[in-house]
């Protein structure tokens, strides 16, 4: 499949130069809350990706029939429906993770990335483009979560995806897990570090 430049930009832009978390600073709240461990972060990233993509497509399909003065309510209803479906699926097939994520799946409804994409993109673009835009933004959000969760789980509890990766002999030598990594404040600092690295690589994105 060959993508035109514009489609490519729609899909890949949100991964780096137009990333919802590190460029637009959206969705920070959940990025702090669900990144203590890698597994919930993966599930959360995936859920948001699916929800944004689906909601984008639905809104894009009905965009011409939505009266503009009630459009926010319509968007909310669509998002709420998709979120509820994803939440039920998680409860049915991945109960442990859904318990870990607790309210945060439900709170995807209020995730700024979602409303932002619906308002800014799906209301004015065709379904296929909207779908790609949803996927791109979802993955853009997800990879930040996964990187943050990787470091928080590794340094905070010495595990990855629940498996012990720092061997016992390191602990015997005096190493201690970093308790600060388990606190949301450290997630904020890690996000800041990602932004730091990202801007130093992409010099054109630096604020003048």
């Amino acid at each position, binding site marked *: 499949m060959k993508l035109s430049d514009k489609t490519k930009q729609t899909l890949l832009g949100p991964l780096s130069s137009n990333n919802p978390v590190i460029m637009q600073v959206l969705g920070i709240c959940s990025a702090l809350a669900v990144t203590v461990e890698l597994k919930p972060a993966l599930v959360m990233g995936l859920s948001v990706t699916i929800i944004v993509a689906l909601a984008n497509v639905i809104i894009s399909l009905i965009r011409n029939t939505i009266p503009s003065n009630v459009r926010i309510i319509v968007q909310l209803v669509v998002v709420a429906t998709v979120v509820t479906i994803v939440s039920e699926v998680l409860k049915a097939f991945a109960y442990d993770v859904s318990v870990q994520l607790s309210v945060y799946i439900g709170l995807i409804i209020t995730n700024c990335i979602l409303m932002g994409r619906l308002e800014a993109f799906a209301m004015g673009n065709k379904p296929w483009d909207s779908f790609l835009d949803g996927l791109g933004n979802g993955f853009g959000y997800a990879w930040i979560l996964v990187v943050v969760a990787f470091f928080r789980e590794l340094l905070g509890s010495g595990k990855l995806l629940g498996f012990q990766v720092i061997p016992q002999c390191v602990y015997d030598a005096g190493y201690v897990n970093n308790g600060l990594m388990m*606190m949301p404040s450290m997630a904020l600092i890690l996000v800041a570090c990602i932004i730091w690295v990202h801007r130093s690589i992409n010099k054109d994105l630096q604020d003048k």
Partner: protein
Amino acid sequence: MKFIKNIVEKIKPTFSEGGKLAAFHSLFDAIETFLFVPNETAKNGTHIHDAIDTKRSMFTVVVALLPAMLFGMWNVGYQHFIAIGQQANFFEQFAFGLLAVLPTLLVAYAVGLGIEVIVAQVKKEEVAEGFFVTGFLIPMIVPIDTPLWMTAVATAFAVIFAKEVFGGTGYNIFNVALITRAFLFFAYPTAMSGDKVWVRTRDAFWWGAGNPVDGFSGATPLGQLGTSASGSPVFSDTMGQTAGFWDAFIGWIPGSVGETSTLAILLGAILLIATGVASWKIMLSVFAGGAFTALLFNVFGPETAIANLPWYEHLVLGGFAFGAVFMATDPVTAARTETGKWIYGFLIGAIAIVVRVLNPGYPEGMMLAILLMNIFGCFIDWCVVQSNIKKRMKRVKQIK
């Protein structure tokens, strides 16, 4: 002096532009200006003729810290030999403490200055002198048994995230030494609290090994009071003997290395006030805020040991005096306006006592109080300035 000067002059070309070791010029500059007054004068603008510069004022602070540091070293040895039940004379106690504290001091300086030099090199600036004091403070505000690698990680974190990202010395919002302590406190709570970390029971450089004797308890007075089940504010020293105000004032109690002796800290305070390096207004108002709040808790507070602790004992226990004299007065992070200094200090004292009394999880509140007020330092200044402007505007209108 002449001898050192000759050496410096001799190796100078090596570090200057074009020299072999030009890459390390910032390190050379730092050492040269530390040893000698820079041989440069202001080219334009106001010329103020005074011997004081950042390096000199930082050095004054380190001299002011010396009494507390030396007493802390002696106290480490003193507590150690009591804990293992051995007799030791004054010099053995001091030597043991020196050996126990020295590695932490060296690690703090090596890590902090290492990062400073790298940053200065990358930014092509001179090495700032800010870490001179910070590195000296770090071993004084941590428990003696803090593992060295933790100190290294915490120092690196603090220097990078509390100082360099804001722009380096003079731009930091938070006190860098306290961020080091806060990082340790939240990241490795077991190494920073409890009753096992305040007195060294193991050896220092293979010397003075022994086992704790029966009846030994390494809990700090505030730790004891915080967990006390009864409502009576009684605390005891390392061997379970009841201790009081004067023990805490002189400082032979367990605690972080430099914080125990209020007497030694006050000696430093006299030097800081006499040289005008630190603000006496902040110091006084921290003590006033602490005394006032503790008095309130004495009269109206809950029936717990820590709330019943007499107000004057609050001021000599834990890190209160140390924080008031050396941390709250940090000129970069404190309020700058004269009225602001009173408000800033008073709130630090008050919040420290509130945290001590009302939060059972934190027996000591000085670190959190100072860090919290660091955030509000600029805001207090802003309010003071605004109210001043308003007052003057009113006067102008009246004249019209």
